[in-house]
């Protein structure tokens, strides 16, 4: 594996290795001296075309703890408006002699395109409404830590699925790891062609959160942007919360062993109530800490164990 562009790049074996290494990396986080020499002399550029403080920080810390030289380049705004093509922007950065590009872009597919233009390693740190493979890895890591395994487990993903890159990566990786997935959203927030997609990939969909929750081993609440209302996706935040929020009342439907996840940032009171966000089953902060470990593992597997990949 040269790049990590999609969760589909991960075989079950590779995903298992990355999660296992992440466990070892997690231990480093608890040391006093948090530094491994694995990527000494390697340069990783976080090329962010879209702001994301948490993802950028997570990749930055991950790279630094592995002793890589990490440089953050913010290329905010679409390249079209600046008159420079994505191709030229990326080649300019790559020409500085980098070993890895960690790319965040507001447009779907941009990291895949970039990987075809450069020789160095490319990691997708979130592209448009397409994928966010390291998020899926950290979600899997977090759920696995609580549930022991994901094999045969039932994961429920709730929220703005149409505009979520998290859900697409999770659908792929959870299937790879043997979990069963149910997507829950109002029909307007279900991705296009979901019926054919669910049929082909073997997952379920539902408009009824209450019916699904009692059978969940994990529930992942996705952020719902208030701006979606202007697109007519749902009438009011209040109505959304009543139908699809993880409210205090709904917590009672969730089994005691189940895990509550949220990729953040949370809209407290909209898709997740404070009661749910702060209770014992909620692993939101565990996810953040797992994010660093998983990204260390990804960088390690792509850069350290693959000599010559950064030609």
């Amino acid at each position, binding site marked *: 594996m040269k790049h990590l562009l999609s969760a589909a790049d991960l075989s079950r074996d590779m995903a298992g290795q990355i999660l296992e290494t992440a466990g070892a990396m997690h231990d480093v986080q608890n040391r006093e001296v948090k530094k491994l020499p694995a990527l000494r002399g390697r340069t990783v550029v976080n090329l962010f075309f879209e702001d994301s403080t948490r993802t950028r920080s997570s990749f930055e810390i991950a790279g630094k703890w592995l002793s890589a030289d990490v440089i953050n380049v913010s290329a905010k705004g679409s390249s079209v408006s600046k008159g420079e093509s*994505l191709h030229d922007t990326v080649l300019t950065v790559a020409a500085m002699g980098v070993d890895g590009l960690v790319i965040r872009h507001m447009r779907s*597919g941009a990291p*895949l395109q970039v990987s075809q233009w450069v020789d160095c390693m490319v990691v997708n740190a979130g592209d*448009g409404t*397409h994928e966010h493979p390291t998020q899926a890895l950290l979600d899997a890591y977090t759920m696995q830590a609580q549930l022991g395994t994901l094999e045969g487990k039932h994961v429920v993903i709730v929220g703005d699925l149409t505009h979520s890159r998290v859900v697409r990566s999770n659908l792929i990786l959870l299937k790879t790891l043997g979990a069963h997935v149910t997507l829950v959203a109002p029909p307007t927030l279900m991705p*296009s062609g979901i019926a054919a*997609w669910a049929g082909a990939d073997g997952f379920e969909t539902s408009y009824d959160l209450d019916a699904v929750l009692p059978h969940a081993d994990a529930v992942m609440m996705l952020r719902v942007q208030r701006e979606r209302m202007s697109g007519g996706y749902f009438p009011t935040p209040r109505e959304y919360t009543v139908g699809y929020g993880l409210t205090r009342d709904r917590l009672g439907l969730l089994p005691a062993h189940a895990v509550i996840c949220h990729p953040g940032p949370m809209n407290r009171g909209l898709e997740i109530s404070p009661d749910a966000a702060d209770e014992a089953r909620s692993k939101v902060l565990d996810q953040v800490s797992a994010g660093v470990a998983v990204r260390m593992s990804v960088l390690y597997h792509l850069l350290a164990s693959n000599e010559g990949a950064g030609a």
Partner: protein
Amino acid sequence: MASTTDYLITGADVVGSGAADILVRDGRIAEIGTGLDVPSGIERVDADGLVALPGLVDLHTHLREPGREDAETIRTGSAAAAAGGFTAVFAMANTNPVTDTAEAAERIAELGERVGLVDVHPVGAVTKSLAGEELAELGLMARSRAQVRVFSDDGKCVHDARLMRRALEYVKAFDGVVTQHAQDPLLADGSACCHEGEVSGRLGLPGWPGVAEEVIVARDVMLARHTGSRVHIAHASTAGTVEVLRWAKSLGIDVTAEVTPHHLMLETDLLAGYDPVFKVNPPLRPAEDIEAVREALADGTIDAVATDHAPHARHDKEHAFADAAFGMLGLEQALAVLHTTMVEPGRMTWAQVAEATSARPARIARLTSQGGGLVAGAPANITLFDPAVTNVVDREESKSLSRNNPWHGHTLKGAVAATFLRGRRTFANGEVHQ
């Protein structure tokens, strides 16, 4: 061979009706038959095994001049057209400045004439600056030396129903036609770039649902019925559009439609690699839509094939998919695509191809100088097509200035061997004769 217009084309299969010789004299077809009485010294063109078709007429071409001469010029676009077997093209109005005045239209016609490889007919904008707000000077464009008869805001839909109604009514005075780019701007806004369906869902690309085309087609056929006007649907791309067209024609509504080579062949699945060369408006559709437009072309529900040839500079395509320019080349591969998808599988005869690529588009545009078929006395606008060769398309071989060729690497059956415009050989042996 420079400017001679006398030829004897020998042994060509004339529009699929069997081998014959075509005698071309003084820019006209003098005679078609076997054992013709041929004057001495006339140049013979061996067309054994080739199909002779009437010169192709493209209702939908983007030549980019004026404004984007880095992507295409009237000269390079004309060369690509000649290489594709075309003898007339209709140049869309979305240039910079927009073709929305008589002066702008005359300028394009004049530049086309100066190049002389194909007849270049400007399409006039329906609304000033394509803004969709006020009618452009349709009548002055019609009265100009360019004699504009086809009007379109192509690239943008005339979505204001009242304005569309007025445009349809107004052009009746000079037997004009409005070509509609059918795209409801709220159901498919400017960001919509992938057919809405499983592929757009998986790829996370903004969906362009077929219904955004179909509701405008349905509205416009009703407006055409109400006003008693002619409406032409650009680049019909969905099964739903075909159903509406079929229904409207059954009621006698004066609607015509075109389909592009790419919508006849290329599926939405090609977007999986996010290659912007496959970004086009309307988007590539799934197999069921492709089958529907093929069937509609074969049975005449769709009247014409038009390329929507849309050259783009490389740097306008080297963006993220959603940011890249819409459009793909079409002139040079159109006939081979039509052969590969329709003729070879037995779905269309050469006579039907001639109707869809020459006679009907000329009639829709009220073009009297072309589209008259291969008959004695007609202007010698002739395309020779070799159905036997198999070509792997190489975008570098294009006469266009641009390289956004969606068939690059595809295998197509057949190739244009030569093109004659009023007896002048504009293309032969891979070379354009300026």
